[in-house]
């Protein structure tokens, strides 16, 4: 960070000190203007995106108001649109994904940052990066043909047999449904949690570990009671980042969730999520109100991810700054 600011200050006065005409003759002003247009277009696109989502959902916003989020009837034939089943589906699947992915991801990050020799850690991180590059439709493909049958034949019957008394695991085992979507989502977000958490853990200053060890802590105690709490904010940031991905994840969820707008306490039940209802119905939506209701769902999704991403970025920035700051001291 320190070097970047100096480079700007170093270059600024050099360019600024010459007269405008001289800069124009050298082409500097033209280059400046031209590149400015491209940079400004990024802002323009973003503003336009928000505007389009807002404008495009005017009809249901006026017609349904807040009841859009409270009603659970989604009936295009009678122009009844309630978003509750989709919001429920998105929240349930994402929560399940976090429940599975956070312990696994943070555990793996601890191994990579604290235990593995640098060479091994970098190699594993390389594979994790590749894993993060696997497109979601591929996860969906494996979800449909590998995870769903496995769920239907093995895992869900087992769950029903041993935990069937819980409302969470009742009803027929379809294979498709909340549980499967949650598991597939978990697999998808683990790489993000690992990558970001590993970097945060690596930024924790060495003396923190050494102090804990010198006081007689075991390796695990120094990690769990000193290093992890130090990095807590950043790890939480990585979780938020992963949650934002999970909420917006479309293809893999669409392919395994069952696409039925139902609110059910049972995780075995098929359901639907915000992103997947847009993916599966937008193209066929007839009538303004139908299309615009789907756009309003898009707006909701946008706002959710916007807030989470913002929080995540702040937490990661604060934690890594604290880490490196102390490291230099």
């Amino acid at each position, binding site marked *: 960070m320190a*070097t970047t600011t*100096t*480079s700007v200050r*170093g*270059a600024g006065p*050099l*360019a600024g000190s010459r007269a405008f005409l001289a*800069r124009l003759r*050298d082409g*500097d002003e*033209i*280059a*400046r203007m031209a*590149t*400015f247009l*491209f*940079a400004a*277009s*990024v802002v323009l*696109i973003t503003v*336009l995106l928000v505007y*389009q*989502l807002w404008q*495009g959902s005017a009809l249901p916003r006026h017609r349904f108001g807040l009841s859009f989020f409270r009603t659970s009837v989604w009936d295009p034939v009678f122009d009844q649109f309630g978003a509750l089943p989709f919001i429920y589906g998105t929240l349930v699947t994402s929560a399940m994904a976090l429940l599975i992915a956070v312990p*696994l*991801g943070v555990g*793996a990050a601890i*191994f990579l940052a604290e*235990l*593995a020799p640098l060479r091994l850690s970098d190699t594993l991180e390389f594979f*994790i990066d590749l*894993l993060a*590059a*696997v*497109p*979601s*439709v*591929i*996860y969906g*493909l*494996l979800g449909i*043909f*590998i995870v769903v049958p496995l769920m239907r034949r093995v895992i869900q019957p087992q769950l029903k047999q041993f935990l069937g008394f819980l409302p969470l695991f009742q009803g027929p085992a379809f294979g498709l449904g909340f549980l499967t979507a949650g598991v597939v989502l978990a697999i998808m977000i*683990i*790489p993000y949690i690992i990558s970001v958490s590993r970097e945060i853990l690596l930024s924790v200053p060495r003396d923190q570990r050494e102090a804990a060890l010198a006081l007689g802590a075991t*390796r*695990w105690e120094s990690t*769990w009671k000193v290093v992890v709490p130090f990095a807590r904010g950043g790890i939480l940031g990585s979780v938020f980042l992963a949650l934002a991905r999970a909420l*917006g*994840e*479309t*293809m893999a969820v669409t*392919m395994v969730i069952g696409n039925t707008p139902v609110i059910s306490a049972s995780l075995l039940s098929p359901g639907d999520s915000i992103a997947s209802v*847009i993916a599966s119905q*937008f*193209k066929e939506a007839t009538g303004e109100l139908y299309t615009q209701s789907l756009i309003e769902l*898009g707006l909701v*999704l*946008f706002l959710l*991810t916007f807030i989470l991403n913002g929080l995540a970025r702040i937490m990661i920035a604060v934690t890594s700054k604290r880490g490196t700051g102390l490291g230099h001291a």
Partner: protein
Amino acid sequence: MNRRLRWRKFVSAFMLSMTGVCAVVAVSVLFLILGYLVVHGGASVSWSFFTNLPAPVGEAGGGMANAIVGSAKLLMLAMLMGVPVGFLGAIYLAEFSGTTTAFIVRYAADLLNGVPSIVIGIFAYSLAVLPFKHFSTFAGGFALGLMMIPITLRSTEEFLRSVPVSLREGAMALGASKWKTIATVIVPSAYRGILTTILLAFARVAGETAPLLFTALGNRFWSPGWSQPTASLPVAIYNYAISPYEDWHRQAWAAGLVLLGLILVINIVARGVLARGISVSRS
């Protein structure tokens, strides 16, 4: 050694080995995915897969030539849009801009980067499909290009900024104008990072499906020109996988193998070869 200490040591060893298990599980997913794709799709990747049009339902054989060409066209459009905007915008941010403007542009780019791909699809639909009243290759390329912009912009800027000040000062001391310094000194010395960035952004959008669902749509046949709906590999995988036909499932596996192979090769080249020794920020 008393019992308490022995217990603590045991907990330490146990928990640390559990973290190792977590890491192994996480990494093994990659090999499981590759393994399944090779086993299920390997047999169906043949010459005709790359050269033939999809066969009608019930008829064996057929390929995905139209989807492969469609994907290539979409990605070309995406590059034409995403790379110039991202690259030149990054030059403005790194070389010309004041702090306030830079903050706003960076903020907008980060925001755009976090937008779920399905929402990008809605946006591209309302800008590039609705006004023309039909789905098109152009609209699909536009959607993918939108996704490339923030990725390219943010990491190109980082690479430009990491060029040492002494190089800039040297060029300017020799009397070069600012844009000449940028074009002949700064960009060339950051080119490996920039190329890596572009490759990774390309690989990222190559597998995107959601933004194409209602922009490029899909097509069972060739799509002439740029204003017709077109097939693409990711959308074809989706449509074939959710279809009820055994034969289409095999094609979906094959297409998945080809797509993932392409993406992994680009990633390996970009991260392992080009980016050796420089740190690539993840997007």
